């Protein structure tokens, strides 16, 4: 394990110095295996500790707090006891003007049973409701925090106050990723949610595991659009490679240098691979219809969903979809009917 692969790894690196793109994948593997942890490829795919059914994750996050009693958590008593005054001893509302007397409000939408499981779902989600037999529904969640910020941070990191690595960062850290032309963890968000970038950050895990932000629009991933034409960019990268190789020739034992040289090759590939993800022109009308997406539109949750699917198909380990930002979201206590607009966007 120790002596021999070390030599062969070095040999391999040497042969890849000729700039062969063919070798790049192998180089990654070899760098990952056995080389000092610090310089190993942190994103090389790893086997889980236990056999797993799921290979990749899509995490849909509805900012602002979807009202459970209006959607997936049927409370018949609420319908029966509408208008009844209740006592609530909660520090949040103590001495708060307007909260002297509290009445029960019934959900704005009717419920129906769906599927073999007979899960109760409101009319807000007619399409999701049809799939209830494929969904694991948890109704027992509760929290002792009442702020969006803490709740959002807690949902993503398990920590309500302190910044910690996000769920996607942990998955990337534990399992690596399968397509090195794409990041391992991608967060698709039209606007920043509560607690800002902390929700998709890697915190104390290596920076390679932080979520790459995708913002719907002309440049979904920062710096992905080449500023030079391909032919010119190739010339630049060739010169860079030549200069770097000369620099490295006396410093062969330093894997940092070759890793960085390799990163330019990968980045060059990403410039094609990433826009390809966002190019829906080859999707059929039928597919677009399924997602409720108009051709060439890059707006709305439909675009996010189709993007997520395309990312997952290409081997991205973890994709998170955040539907809205920290305002104009599901925090509809001022006007519950706003849930209809938001639900229509994501259903």
């Amino acid at each position, binding site marked *: 394990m120790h002596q021999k692969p070390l030599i062969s790894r070095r040999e391999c690196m040497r042969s890849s110095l000729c700039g062969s793109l063919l070798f790049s994948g192998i180089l990654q593997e070899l760098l990952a295996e056995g080389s*000092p*942890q*610090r310089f190993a490829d*942190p*994103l090389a795919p790893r086997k889980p500790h236990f056999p797993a059914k799921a290979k990749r994750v899509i995490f849909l996050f509805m900012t602002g707090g979807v009202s459970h009693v209006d959607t997936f958590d049927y409370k018949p008593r609420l319908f029966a006891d509408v208008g009844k005054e209740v006592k609530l001893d909660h520090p949040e509302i103590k001495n708060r003007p307007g909260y002297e007397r509290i009445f029960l409000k019934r959900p704005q939408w009717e419920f129906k049973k769906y599927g073999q499981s007979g899960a109760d779902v409101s009319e807000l989600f007619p399409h999701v409701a049809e799939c209830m037999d494929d969904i694991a529904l948890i109704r027992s969640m509760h929290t002792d925090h009442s*702020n*969006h*910020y*803490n709740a959002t941070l807690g949902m993503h990191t398990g920590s309500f*106050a*302190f*910044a*910690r690595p996000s769920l996607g960062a942990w998955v990337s850290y534990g399992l690596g990723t399968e397509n090195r032309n794409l*990041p391992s963890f991608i967060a698709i968000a039209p606007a*920043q949610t*509560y607690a*800002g*970038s*902390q929700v998709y*950050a*890697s*915190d*104390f*895990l*290596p*920076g*390679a595991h*932080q979520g*790459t932000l995708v913002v719907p629009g002309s440049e979904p991933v*920062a*710096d*992905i659009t080449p*500023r*030079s*034409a391909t032919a*010119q960019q190739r*010339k*630049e*990268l060739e*010169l*860079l490679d030549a*200069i*770097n190789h000369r*620099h*490295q020739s006396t*410093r062969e*034992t*330093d894997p*940092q*240098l070759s*890793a*960085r040289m390799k*990163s*330019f090759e*990968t*980045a060059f590939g*990403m*410039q094609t691979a990433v826009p390809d993800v966002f190019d829906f022109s080859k999707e059929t009308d039928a597919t677009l219809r399924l997602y409720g997406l108009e051709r060439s539109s890059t707006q709305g949750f439909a675009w996010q969903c189709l993007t997520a699917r395309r990312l997952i198909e290409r081997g991205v380990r973890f994709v998170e979809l955040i539907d809205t930002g*920290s305002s104009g979201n599901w*925090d509809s206590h001022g006007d519950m009917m706003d849930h209809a607009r938001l639900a229509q966007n994501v259903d």
Partner: protein
Amino acid sequence: MEGKGAVTHEMRYMMFKRPFYLPLTFSLFAWLMGAPPAHAQNTEALTHFEKRVRPLLVSRCLSCHGKSVQQGGLRLDSREAILKGGGRGSAITLQHPTESLLSKAIHGSGVLKMPPSGMLTAEEKEAVDLWIRQGAPWTPSTQPLIAKPATVPLWSFRPVKRPPIPATHNKTWAKNPIDAFILDKMERFGVTPPSLADRRTLYRRLAFDLTGLPPEPRAIEAFQRDQSPRAIETVIERLLASPHYGEQWGRHWLDVVRYADTAGENSDHPLPHAWRYRNWVIDAFNRNLPYNEFVKEQVAGDILAKQGDPNRYAERVVATGYLAIARRFGHDIEQDMHLTYEDVIDTLGKSFLGLTLGCARCHDHKFDPISVKDYYGLYGVFSSSRFSYPGCEPKQQPRDLVPLLSTVEMEARTKTVQESLRKLDEENRTLLDSLPKEARALSADARKFATTLSEGEIEDGGEKRFEVGAKTSLQRVHVRKGDVLQLFVTPLQNHGADSTLVEWKIAEIGGQGRLWDVRDLVEDLPAGNPHTDRYGNVGTWCFMDAQEGFRFLPEKLERIDGQSAIKAWRDGDTPSVFVNTSAQPVKVWTTLPPKSFFVHPGAKGAVAVAWLSPFDGEVSISGRIADVHRGGDGVGWLLQQYTSSPNTLTMAQRYAELGRQSMALQELQAKRAVFQESLRVPVAFAVVEGEARNAHIQKRGDPAMLGEETPRTFLTSLGESKQPPKDSSGRLELANWLASPTNPLTARVFVNRVWQWHFGRGLVETPNDFGSRGSAPTHPELLDYLTDWFLKSGWDVRALHRLILSSATYQSISVAPPTSKRPPSPKEAKELYALFLRRRLTAEEIRDAFLTVSGEIDVTPGEAHPFPPESGWSFTQHSPFADEYPTMKRSVYLLQKRNRKARYFALFDGADPNTSSPIRDNTTVPTQALYFMNDGFVHARAEKFAEKILSASSTPQERIQFAYRQAYGRTPSRLEIQEGERFLMDYAQSLKEIPPQNRLTSAWQAYARVLLSSNEFLYID
């Protein structure tokens, strides 16, 4: 490895949010504590008790059945008490476990249902039953929390002792004692010591190390030529004396103290004064503040300020920003102050002592001798201090900011200013007295000799031309030099009056054909009152308050309601004369049409505009007024001419004199405002003494579950049991203890940091953890030697730099020569210092290097960020503070936000603004490569760099030479020049789509980008 990747304590901390009591060596403990009951020997049962049962008793039972309250006479805090039971008898019957009262109570199968706050879960009930069946084993400890048995003292807790300098076989390599220690170990491992790096490499290494900036090519060349034996010392001294040294080394410290410009609570409030602390740190390095002073001032600067040199008052108060910039948490930050104190204690432990004190918030430290009592001893010290308040969503405004003047100075200054104000007011007195009299006299005299030219009224929303109310022909009015034409606009019944649009033209008939139009005033209304006309006649226009006499409107406004298009002269709210300078309608209290002139009468009377005739002759007068704010009852107008005067002065001269006095008064009042402004004292975001009070232990770190009171102390395991005076928080005593030469940790930890910042790796690889979970030093004797040396130098940081930098160890090559028979392995290079470790530039260094090479860097120190004014803050969790403030200054001065870390710093492993970063990570990811290839910042810098290259010379060869010197500090080889020339030609030829004259420039820009993206630019040998 500490830092990212090595997930150790942090991870566990997060995973086990419930209390997690490790089964430590109970049997040993039990033995130590005296004869235990036989069943208590069963470790497994004890583990079950500690892990599952004791937490339940503590959290669910003891509030009613504990030390302070014994409901039903029952205590559940010791085995004896449980067996003894309360009024109903023994709580546990060992012979019949299921019949035990306790078991029945938790199952609700008897009379009692416990706990009343809500039944236990099935799992919890089972745990208690099992424990009862096991015979209710009990860890014989009197505390509800397990104390760790004493272990062998940690190496880092032992006193610092200077070891002898080892004798080495090689007598020529070592330059100073550091080298002897390093060489000794290399010899023991059979490794040949490295030779010295060449001067170019060395200079580049030193320049980035000490200043964070790329070296001046000329300075490298001078160093290469310098034959003097002290050449290296000269270079080191020069770099240490650079103001950029403090910026680089200050940034290292700012990493450790998780510096940020925002508070980090839900809405991430800005900290507009935090920069003073940032600059204090930079300055402290630049003036070589001894490290013990550096420590003391950060912990207790406010107290030292009062006791010491008054000239250093402000800086010492600023130093406590170290504490004040602690992170705030949650929505209403006062609810979560216990978390902020944890942040303070945790950072204090890591930064000064290399100890993870934060672990003891919920439990005795698992691995290091730090107890919960120690933690809450420190907690009391900080909760007895008053921290500046940054504001948060429910309470937006900051408060408790600390003035940078001592109380004595404040009083002295107030006294001087009060005196000056009194004098000013005395001078004003004459004017204040005479002006109203003169104003009344003027109006009385004017009315005596007045001719009314036009008058009338308009209704709400109406408009009328002056001709409609003409009393005489306005087509031909005779004026003499010194006459006054004055237009009054008066309120009708409602006194509320109205915003009134005024158009008024005075045209000279014959003569020069001049035209005076109030519309001319739109462009420069604030220029003066009296106001010069467009022909340069001084004081032609006057804007008057005509409520009582004729007073000049005294107050000039450059904006109204936040609209800078609206300018005015006014007195209080009304009366006023104002203009809309915009070419667009502007919405204020009403929508004001573009490029127009308005007046607004006062509540008690008219506003007036006067025109002083500068010539003898005839004029024609035209105009109209219009109500532009519906909802009142309209206004009246009166247009009068004043021709003569009862004394020798003309009316116009009387106006001018009054205007002069009015201006003089305005000036005096402006002076008064300046004096008053000088009473405003600069403030710092800092800490002062609060109400001295001990803290109570918070069980499981929960502030709602208070335990016993703990005296304010420092770490007892380090032999410190002294308690501060009753009326002091204890910060001064804490500071003195931290900075004491007998404290075994403070100096060791810092010396290790300095070593790490020079070499990229500490002698102890975990600079924030000198506890038992941290790494042991690779060269313990060297660490002790340096620590002792540092203490004897009087904690002289710069002297320590000199010692390290002049060692052969520091000056070694980083690349093994191709001729070497056995090049050192990476492990030897790293752990034995057999080669100097190559490192990548940090995020700050990359950006600063770009800006330096492109020639755009602004090297003046940064100060405050341009935050919006505090009075307008309304940040929420929905819309938190999220500004960016781009600048060309050095990166240490860039805005650092806590909740929305800048993308650039996230990409290049910048410091974490939320928790102490002892080591910068060094990740290489393709998104960084994308940044170099496609980011606008890189392209813009490369364009500027290309401009410099192009103007440096006219031959490609010399240009390439210039580029190499700038970027790499060396001349290119012949091969490299040829390669460059080939690239440029080839690149330019390939640019078919752009005009030929631009192709060369584009090619040079591409070339510049390549150099700036190369490993040679980014790595330091």
